[in-house]
């Protein structure tokens, strides 16, 4: 029996197309302009982790299903696995390495205080997502936070502690 090929390729008998050329692009990451050389198919996530050695941003699924790769682009949270690096020139990209002005961001400290993680792999994404979510201004209650943080999976099951941490920061912000 002949099985189906692994990838359905309509141009099955043709030679593979030549790869798109590499491009020099400038990404503004954590307040610094960084020049990297990438092909257009490189995701922002892989550019951050592989080319810029900013490995704090995590790859959990590469499909936009887990949220581990969440970063802030112009203050908005996005899944960095679902966008290409070449699409992000001219934008302000903030990763976990750049969220604190000095020392620790209150969200980072709250995550430690509430033990809002175990293995730590989803944590940078959770923290960036939480900061982005509060920026959005739609979270008013604990239930809102739960709903709006549901794009960030945590297999260790730290959800209740994550919400506790976010609520603490949110309430402190509200009192300012």
């Amino acid at each position, binding site marked *: 029996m002949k099985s189906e090929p692994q990838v359905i390729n309509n141009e099955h008998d043709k030679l593979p197309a030549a790869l798109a050329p590499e491009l020099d692009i400038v990404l503004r990451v954590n307040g610094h302009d960084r020049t990297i050389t990438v092909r257009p198919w490189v995701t922002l996530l892989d550019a951050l982790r592989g080319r810029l050695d900013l490995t704090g941003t995590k790859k959990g699924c590469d499909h936009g299903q887990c949220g581990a790769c969440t970063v802030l682009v112009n203050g908005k949270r996005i899944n960095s696995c679902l966008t290409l690096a070449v699409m992000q020139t001219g934008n302000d990209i903030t990763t976990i*390495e750049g969220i604190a002005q000095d020392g620790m961001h209150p969200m980072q400290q709250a995550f430690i205080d509430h033990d809002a993680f*175990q293995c730590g792999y989803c944590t940078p994404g959770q923290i960036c997502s939480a900061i982005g979510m509060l920026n959005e201004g739609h979270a008013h209650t604990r239930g809102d936070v739960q709903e709006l943080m549901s794009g*960030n999976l945590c297999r260790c099951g730290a959800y209740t502690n994550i919400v506790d941490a976010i609520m603490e920061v949110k309430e402190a912000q509200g009192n300012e």
Partner: protein
Amino acid sequence: MQQKYIGKAISRVDGPAKVTGTAKYAAEYNVPDLHYGYVVNSTIANGEIEKINLTKAAMVDGVVKIYTHENRPSTAWLSLNYADMDAPPGKPFVPMHNNKVVYNGQPIAMVVAKSFEVARYAASLITVEYKADKSDTDLVANLQNARDPKKGLASFLKPPPPKPKGNAAKAYEAAPLKAGGSFYHGVEHHNPMEPFATTVVYEDKDKLKIYDKTQGSVNTQMYVANVFGLKFKDVRVLSPFVGGAFGSGLRPQYQLFLSVMAALDMQCNVRLTLNRHQMFTFGHRPATLQNTFYGADADGKLQSIQHESVAETSTYEDYTEIVVNWANMIYPSPNVNLQYKLAPLNMASPMDMRAPGGATGMHPVEITIDELAHQAGMDPVEFRLLNYTDEDETTGKPYSSKELKECFKQAAEKFGWAKRNPQPRSMRRGHKLVGWGMATGIWEAMQVPTRAEAILTADGKLTVRSATADFGTGTYTVMAQIAADAMGMSLDNVTFELGDSDMPFAPISGGSFTAASCGTAVQAACLGLKKKLLKKAQSTNAEYKSVNLDDIAFVDGQLQPTNSAVKPIAYTDLAAASKNKQIASKNMGWPQMMKQRKYTRAAHSAIFAEVEVDEDFGVVKVTRLVSAIAAGKILNPKTARSQILGGMVWGISKALREESVMDHRIGRFMNTNLGEYHTPVNADIHQLDVIFVEEDDQIVNDLGIKGIGEIGLVGVPPAIANAIFHATGKRVRNLPIKLNDLM
């Protein structure tokens, strides 16, 4: 020993590294001249590869080499060389060994390229021709092949069921109260957030540094050395941070083999990361079918326990779990018959997944007990108290400690159980049926020999190390606490290091035995260090010549003799006077076998659950869970609570969400991604309460540690199923419980 830190809710010491993104995981070491691998997986479950077409892939600019079974370098001949610390009886899977396909998703080719994207693209151009044979992947359709498991080394930690007692079938027939049924759960995959990855640094000919995702750096080291014929000292494995594992890291996965093979062959640095789909192409919790038949007398006392289980295994290994042994450990009965069999299927070998066997077996046990209580017209807690025991009947040994009654009491109180109307379908909130259910959990408290080293330097710092692991379990933190207390030092001056095969030996970290095993090793190393400090004091200070170890308090970083005439000496002075300005001691932490062997040692739990079930749509919401845990000494209530919370989330997931769904026509899992393999999201998790019940156990080990990694999960799924019965009157025995079961 003064306990200044043990038992205190201290924040995770590795917290700052994790929240700032500086904690590095296996795929995050960007070493120079790195080559990237990408794996091609089989798309049939059983058969042979006739041809692999590599032409197009090889033409892609940047592809360096493509490996298949036809060209890969040879590795060890003996099957034994592939057996890791957690290998079940049988022949371990060897990647690309020949053209045989033994499960769907098996790695059959690997592209190595200069970039990740090129490797991935080239892999997509590889096509494969197979000769496919019939594959059997459906446990229920293959029960006729069920047989006794083969015995092997693993049988020590996973003993087969005890021999039958009395006449369970006859007693069941005669019993006025009968309950039981058939329970099935499908395959589950661990799905830690971090995909499996290995970065191999080629240091020199036959000398490697390997960053691996593993629950045991020494296990990886041993495997690589044995398989590739390298010297142990030339293989250094590092895994300081592991992004979740839940048992999946107990065995080396195929990315380790393939990346090491390529690095040695190409003499370069190689990284191989599995994608999320590939996280479904190795071990998993096996599909299991169980039957229970329990009988009780008119008063509710158990007279017969019959529990049989058939679990799936692969065609090449006999993976076993302890599934049926639990019932008679917690419920006494004069007549018992426990059977455990395996049915080999064309699938990857199953492997340990959080509370392996326990989470599986206790589900039917606790549902059947709930049914009996219901039939007897008794409250489920009362029924369990009536059938309570302080002795494990499967061995005839008493429990070293068992505060389960206190768990029932405290959890029931917190939950408000007294207000429960026992009648099913009697409680409502609007159009939602409300149900309250409960269950018991148990997990054995194990301990394995582990080594640790304690090093005190003249700057007043203590470093303690062991090759164990922390995959979110809190090992870094609790070991530092133990060491700080053992040496009477401030925690700020104590660092615990782990995840490096160059460190003193530690076995794989799992089964909830790490805190007890490594904790004992840390204490042993600190005791060794104290002895050396005294020896140094005696050699430098005449006053100490006649002072014994027992006559000294080790506090505030000083030796403080009870005899006040002898002046205290600071550790730092003694270290400064020593060679290399440090004093170190390396010791083995042995289980106290003579004491332990007379007892069964286990952690227990009581879980109370509240569910709301939408009457029209069958949607279940777990609104509240209260879990009371008796697990000996709780080293750190903060990190321990998180472990239990995680177990409770896993319990909700197991009860209502997760299942790897197989298309049996082709023997392939269909939902191999995090969108379709359902686990709870934040909005699915509501009020969770954890109670640690005080339990003093002098037998398990000096510190009284039982371990908490698994106990948080065991008992949660049946508590939820029992609550659903109470809400709806429907007894659902299979997992996960789905909407259509309740409509």
